[in-house]
């Protein structure tokens, strides 16, 4: 077996040094009833690289990759062009095959990029500080709510109807088992709900997504003021990180915590994971932040370096008193994010965002021109909701058969909202061509 370098002679000599007659003897503490003398039945034996590649590639070949067809899906996962450099650099063994940087003297590479990551996240969200990443945007959202509960010592969260339902459900799961209230508003395609009116003296936070899961963009300054007035925190969720290159950032609108999905930068769609959660907050809450933090310090020679810090918040020190049980985060995905954003820089990030918005505007105009098709949002970034004259999921399946992946039917996200089953979420990014937009419009017109 190619990954196991011991030879039979090695094994025999090592057993001799140990003074055991067989490896089975080393398993003598296993209860006799649970010991097995050979491989577990029902599974195949070892295979060469060629055979494994053949079998797994056959599964891959049964799927329709986004890049092979006109493709317009978003709803929390976006297809962007990731420069080749990104994937090349993150596959360096020194990044790929290292552990969490517990020994800082030989982990400065990881620690320095995490410090750069934290700075980038703080800058693009317009917040003071950020952590070294979370599992994904949804878990970051749930952790943000629990942090708001700790900060305010209250336990009622108000969740906007524009919040991605997976984020809502992840937060509700924690609400049920951790023991707090998560009040979820009805799906709100236009962003017209009155969230301020739902804040009371027990409200720890309001969670609002911008752009919303329906694509709607709105100014949250007034909502931030309403939260402040009642002692609640404003948590802003962002599922499309590229939007931060164009829109007024959450920090400027008055957010206390930002929980975002960073997949759009550096990371492929990957059928939903692994992704990278971004978590940023006001500095005064630093000791309530979940997850890893990298901090600057000096070494014994007085040289600048980085270490994991404030670990007294964390489970390996605090055990049952930790702020979160999170241990591993999304280190390598954070690295991909950081390299992609480093390549883009100030000018590139702004241009990428403008390009996405312009393509979406262009697609919205094209779709609006189709009879009985209506774009419902007045403001959006690179994704918007269209109302169709028929149930969206049927049309999406019909178009998929014709080789067009048209978007995400709202019914896939909100199966309980039967009145919204004529709505379709459509996203456009820099990867879409005008020809693809035309192909979508043609296919849709023919299907209607």
């Amino acid at each position, binding site marked *: 077996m190619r990954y196991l370098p011991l030879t039979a002679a090695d094994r025999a000599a090592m057993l001799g040094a140990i003074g055991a007659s067989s490896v089975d003897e*080393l398993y003598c503490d296993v209860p006799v009833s649970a010991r097995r003398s050979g491989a577990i039945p029902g599974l195949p034996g070892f295979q060469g690289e060629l055979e494994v590649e053949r079998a797994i590639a056959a599964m891959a070949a049964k799927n329709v990759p986004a890049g092979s067809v006109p493709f317009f899906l978003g709803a929390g996962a976006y297809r962007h062009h990731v420069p080749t450099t990104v994937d090349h650099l993150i596959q360096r063994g020194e990044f790929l095959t290292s*552990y969490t940087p517990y020994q800082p003297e030989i982990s400065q590479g990881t620690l320095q990029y995490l410090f750069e990551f934290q700075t980038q996240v703080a800058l693009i969200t317009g917040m003071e500080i950020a952590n070294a990443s979370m599992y994904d945007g949804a878990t970051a959202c749930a952790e943000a709510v629990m942090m708001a509960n700790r900060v305010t010592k209250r336990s009622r969260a108000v969740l906007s109807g524009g919040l991605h339902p997976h984020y809502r459900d992840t937060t509700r799961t924690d609400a049920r088992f951790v023991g707090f209230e998560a009040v979820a508003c009805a799906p709100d395609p236009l962003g017209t709900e009155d969230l301020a009116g739902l804040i009371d003296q027990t409200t720890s936070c309001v969670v609002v997504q911008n752009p919303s899961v329906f694509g709607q963009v709105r100014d949250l300054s007034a909502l931030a003021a309403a939260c402040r007035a009642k002692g609640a925190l404003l948590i802003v969720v962002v599922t499309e990180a590229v939007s931060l290159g164009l829109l007024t950032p959450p920090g400027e609108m008055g957010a206390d915590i930002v929980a975002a999905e960073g997949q759009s930068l550096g990371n492929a769609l990957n059928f939903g994971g692994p992704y990278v959660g971004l978590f940023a907050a006001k500095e005064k809450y630093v000791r309530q932040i979940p997850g890893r933090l990298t901090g600057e310090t000096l070494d014994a020679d007085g040289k600048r370096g980085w270490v994991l810090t404030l670990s007294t918040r964390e489970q390996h020190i605090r055990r049952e008193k930790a702020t979160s049980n999170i241990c591993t985060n999304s280190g390598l995905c954070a690295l991909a994010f950081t390299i992609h954003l480093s390549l883009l820089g100030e000018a590139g990030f702004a241009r990428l965002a403008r390009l996405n918005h312009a393509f979406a505007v262009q697609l919205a105009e094209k779709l609006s021109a189709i009879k009985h098709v209506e774009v419902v949002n007045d403001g959006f970034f690179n994704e918007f909701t269209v109302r169709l004259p028929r149930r969206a999921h049927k049309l999406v399946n019909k178009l998929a058969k014709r080789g067009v992946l048209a978007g995400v039917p709202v019914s896939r996200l909100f199966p309980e909202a039967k009145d919204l089953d004529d709505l379709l979420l459509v996203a456009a990014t820099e990867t879409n061509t005008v020809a693809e937009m035309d192909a979508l419009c043609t296919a849709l017109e023919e299907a209607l």
Partner: protein
Amino acid sequence: MNSQTTAKDAPAIEPAGTSPATPLGTISGNRGLRIEEPLIFEQDSPGHCGVDLPEPPALALRLGGVAPRGRIGLPGLAEPTVVRHYTRLSRNNYAIDAGFYPLGSCTMKHNPRINEKLARLPGFADLHPLQPLSTVQGALELIDTLAHWLKTLTGMPAVAMSPAAGAHGELCGMMAIRAALDHRADRPRKRVLVPESAHGTNPATAAALGFTVDTIPADARGRVDLDAFKAKLGDPATTDVAAIMLTNPNTCGLFETDIIAIAEAIHQAGAFFYCDGANFNAIVGRVRPADLGVDVMHINLHKTFSTPHGGGGPGSGPVVFSEALAPFIPLPSVVHDRDGFHLVETNDDDGATGLAFGRMKAFHGQMGMFVRALAYAMSHGADGLFQASSDAVLNANYLLARLGSDYSTPFEGPCMHEVLFDDRSLKGSGVTTLDIAKALIDEGYHPMTVYFPLVVHGAMLIEPTETETRAALDQFIAVMKGLAERAKSGHADYFHAAPTLTPRRRLDETAAARKPVLRWKAN
């Protein structure tokens, strides 16, 4: 897994400027291949951009009245600058690819590159999680296939694939236990028994979910003290214990010999057995957790199934469940029938148990990690996995046999996949466990896990894994023996100064925590 370096008995940081250097030093501060690399923000060259993008079409903004933002403050860098920057940073890292990494309880074994290649096939990497199911049948098949492997290897009937990491899997498993207990509603059950040797995530998980953590002491053999356990459990007819969270093999690297008795007692009391599967790699292919009475166990794919640790994630933590807990798994799950594969995303969907407790994260799990883990499992096969755990245990016992006279062992008998030493043998030398770790760094090794588990003083937990050659183990043994000898022969100063040959020497963690600087700021 954790390996804390901020132990109370760590020596103070020395004053600056005491490292042995060449008389003059270099003009640049660089030392040959070791280059001093500033932050990207300090290399800002406005106007540079590493990506060429077309001019956006000139269309009016439709931002609904929200203003476009002003300057962000990101640096401008050319593509060659970015490549050089991150290449230089990478060279400041230790890695499995570069050397022996015996970090106990972390399983730093070889990461095969075929797994990387397969995860990047467009048929997986370029799939959107919400595409019509007819266009992702192969992806669902892959998840289902890996699920089959995990269920067969553990003997458990159900698996939740979505948890993103081990600690996330712990939450998932304990939520399922809570859901099952709530469903049964026999009596309030608040207490979770956790051995003192447990990973910090165990008590953190139980406490996060509102359970009261009740710590069980270890006995003189490094196992759960069975009498103390029974006393804590109390009368099975009235106990308020919800579950025990037990790592097996435990964090001392020992198999819990009384595990079946513990499981029986827990079940008799109507409680559940959560097994922390972090150390499953010691027994995978050789022992099925179901045969030990386990109700629920998370599996760290980044340990047992060798998906890369990536400097701290992404991980993946599928959770297997017994028949009793199977109805209470989270959403979503993959099911199949004659028409193909389907996703159960709500409790009303076909194939749903009706009792699933909800979502743990967005979408369906860490697909990229599933591909790598399946490639790893298929490469080994059932026979190869049997051999892999056997070799991991053999290697650890070889280190125990060869180093047992140089370092003190807190517990008797063979170990499993990792070997634990304490610091009694260093007594009087002025050298601590941390000093040994730092001296190992200068020798070209990543240190073992230190000061964990907490049940022994000055713990050194060494996990060699199955992917090391005997020659690599022998070299490490020689270095460890040499360090022990040096420590005992009055060279404490040498250890206190270590490491001296690294990109940075010991860092002042106290100062970092006192006044946290968590981001770069323009002057």
